[in-house]
């Protein structure tokens, strides 16, 4: 059984493939072994090692919500050897999955708080997992705001869900594209995420901010959040590092003495500020 | 004991030897079916690592063939290849890898018969040498 061999992945069958954007796909994966599927559970923010047998493993988050049972979803960009092999897989083929690894977004402890999700480009998947989780427990939270931007309209992922979210009354969705990335019928904002955030200026009172995006976006968004009054311990983000085992053994994902795969990938800004400049 | 069928991989240049092999076919000349041809633009593009991979994937014999000197579609591909094979062959020999299993030839687009002779000769020689177990036995060694 896989508990004995901690490197042995679950066998997963690809049930659905969605082409989100150029080079970006979403897979819905079912457990080949139902038994394993039933016993499998995870929390928002955790990641896994997805393997294409013969090519290797790659690391990204579980994009579906823990409240949705029986399957997991992942979204990835075709960039390296394994993701290229993944992108060539077809529905019905078998890939491997090891996990869940890493720590979580402490969603349960945010009852009665408001949630502000800020995502850029392909970094929406880690937050999408939390968003759907929060929406399935909608009554526990005050208001939910989502600010999501990408370089161009075509680069926006989960377009069908953005539609669905924009129609819901119980959350505020602001989508934006970088200047020049808009299309003629684009109705959303035009501008970089930090500027759109400043314009929207959601209240930081009793609010948790979750930020995920390319380093440049994080760098420019954090000061805006601070200006809006968000405290570092209420600002959450995820760190990415090269990983091979995901189990705190292979020794490569450390930032200072913290292993991103065990002490992360979710960190508060307060924690990030204590980390040495090595990420 | 099942008759040993040698696996021969042929790296051939598209303009001459591949066309030559076509000619062999169209002139109904029979030759040993053990050869698996891989077409490359020019012998100049046939990297020595391709030969290593061929042995790695279980080949017992390798043929590398392309245009005669001065016939190269890219004028100097075969000249570069010639120098490469002189150096690579001496390295293989120095390391003790069986260079009798690696054949180099110039076969032009008109030499259909020569291609057939070459393949038959190589198939026969490799048949005598038997499978390249020395290299195949390396496969599992060194993995605990």
């Amino acid at each position, binding site marked *: 059984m896989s508990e*004995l*061999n*901690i*490197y*042995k*992945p679950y*066998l997963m069958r690809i049930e659905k493939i969605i082409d989100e954007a150029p080079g970006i796909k979403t897979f819905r994966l079912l457990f080949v072994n139902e038994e394993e599927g039933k016993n499998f559970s995870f929390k928002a923010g955790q990641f896994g090692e997805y*393997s*294409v*047998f*013969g*090519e*290797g*493993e790659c690391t990204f988050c579980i994009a579906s919500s823990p409240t949705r049972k029986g399957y997991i979803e992942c979204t990835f960009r075709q*960039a*390296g050897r394994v*993701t290229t092999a993944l992108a060539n897989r077809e529905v*019905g*083929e*078998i890939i*491997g999955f090891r996990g869940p690894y890493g720590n979580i977004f402490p969603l349960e402890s945010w009852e009665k708080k408001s949630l502000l999700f800020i995502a850029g480009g392909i970094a929406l998947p880690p937050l999408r997992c939390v968003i759907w989780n929060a929406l399935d427990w909608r009554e526990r939270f005050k208001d939910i705001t989502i600010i999501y931007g990408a370089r161009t309209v075509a680069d926006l992922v989960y377009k069908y869900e953005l539609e669905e979210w924009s129609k819901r009354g119980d959350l505020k969705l602001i989508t934006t594209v970088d200047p020049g990335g808009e299309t003629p019928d684009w109705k959303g904002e035009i501008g970089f995420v930090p500027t759109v955030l400043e314009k929207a200026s959601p209240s930081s009172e009793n609010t948790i901010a979750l930020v995920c995006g390319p*380093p440049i976006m994080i760098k420019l968004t954090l000061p805006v959040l601070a200006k809006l009054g968000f405290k570092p311990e209420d600002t959450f983000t995820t760190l*990415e*590092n*090269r990983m*091979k*085992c995901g*189990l*705190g*053994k*292979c*020794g*490569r*994902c*450390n*930032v*200072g*003495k913290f292993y991103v795969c*065990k002490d992360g990938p979710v960190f508060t800004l307060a924690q990030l500020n204590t980390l*040495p*400049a*090595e*990420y | 004991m099942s008759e040993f069928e040698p696996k021969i991989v042929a790296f051939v240049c598209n303009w001459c030897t591949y066309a030559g092999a076509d000619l062999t076919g169209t002139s109904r000349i029979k030759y040993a079916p053990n050869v698996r041809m891989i077409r490359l633009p020019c012998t100049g593009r046939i990297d020595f690592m391709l030969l290593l991979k061929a042995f790695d*994937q279980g080949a017992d014999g390798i043929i590398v063939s392309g245009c005669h000197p001065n016939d190269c579609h890219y004028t100097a591909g075969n000249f570069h290849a010639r120098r490469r094979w002189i150096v690579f062959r001496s390295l293989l020999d120095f390391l003790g890898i069986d260079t009798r299993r690696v054949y180099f030839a110039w076969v032009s687009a008109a030499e259909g018969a020569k291609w057939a002779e070459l393949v038959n000769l190589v198939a026969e020689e490799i048949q005598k040498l038997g499978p390249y177990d020395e290299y195949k036995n390396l496969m599992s060694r*060194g*993995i*605990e």
Partner: protein
Amino acid sequence: MEIERKLLKKGSLGKLFEKITASGRRILAPVQDGENIFFKEVCSPEEVAKDYIQTTLSAKSAVFPACEKLFEYKFEGREVKIEDRDLNFKPTVIFGLRPCDARSFSALNAVFSWDYQDELFKKRLERTAVIGLSCGKADEYCFCTSVGGGPGDSQGSDILLTQIGSGDYLAEVITEKGKELVAISPELFEPAGDQDKEKYLAKLPKQFELKALSEKLPGLFNNTELWIEQSLRCLGCGACAFVCPACVCFDIQDEAKRDGGVRLRCWDSCGFSLFTLHTSGHNPREVQNQRWRQRVMHKFSYFNDRLGVIGCVGCGRCSRICPADMNLLEHLKAIAEAGK
């Protein structure tokens, strides 16, 4: 368990080897190979190298091999079948292991049994017994006493032999496994009487204060000048990590052919740039001084904070084989004095 002190005659080593081999165990011992000494499988004491300070490679590969199968898989059409590997490894006795190397197994074990249990490693370690050999002499690279060890330290050994004047061995039976080995041929282990073990051990004064070093290191993280100065001549190969008995970092690689393949675990080193290179091209540790800093910080600060064990046993191998003569002990002393 109470350490029993026995005497093992020099002449009865042959018999001991025979009995151990007969009991279905293989024996790994240092064997001379040109200018180097490697741990190889031996049958008789004659094959064992004599009169040397330390082997070239550590015995780490007995429990954490350089290239190891995690599992195999077969492709059947679009289906994949995973085949677990068999874990009943042949019981092994490592003979002639220096006390520093014997201590390194606990550093390896600290990682492999922290949080997730690595059964592969633990099974190999469980099947491995250590007959250590104390150090009669040391060279300028050794610094076991500075990292909590010693030329006669028994930690990690199941039986520790110390060669005394007559050439016979004072045998300290330390663990249950040691007792099992003695039980195979009890007649070879006679009562030891009083032997002054210290007399036959190398004299190795402490070179630096470990505690002070570990506490000082975090503060030096941003002292780029120091790390550049130390690592200017470092060439960025992986030799120091691969000869090191306490280096644990590994890589996972897949190798497959048409009908199936294998997932391998192999040694890796923080000295390589690929170790932390992101697919996007970003590399948190871009240049060699950051990697040298990682090597020192991991072994003397992070490892200790997380697992309570120091990631170095002071065997000196990394400095003996370094092509650029990066002398770890010298650098540690420089760090200990930095800012004094």
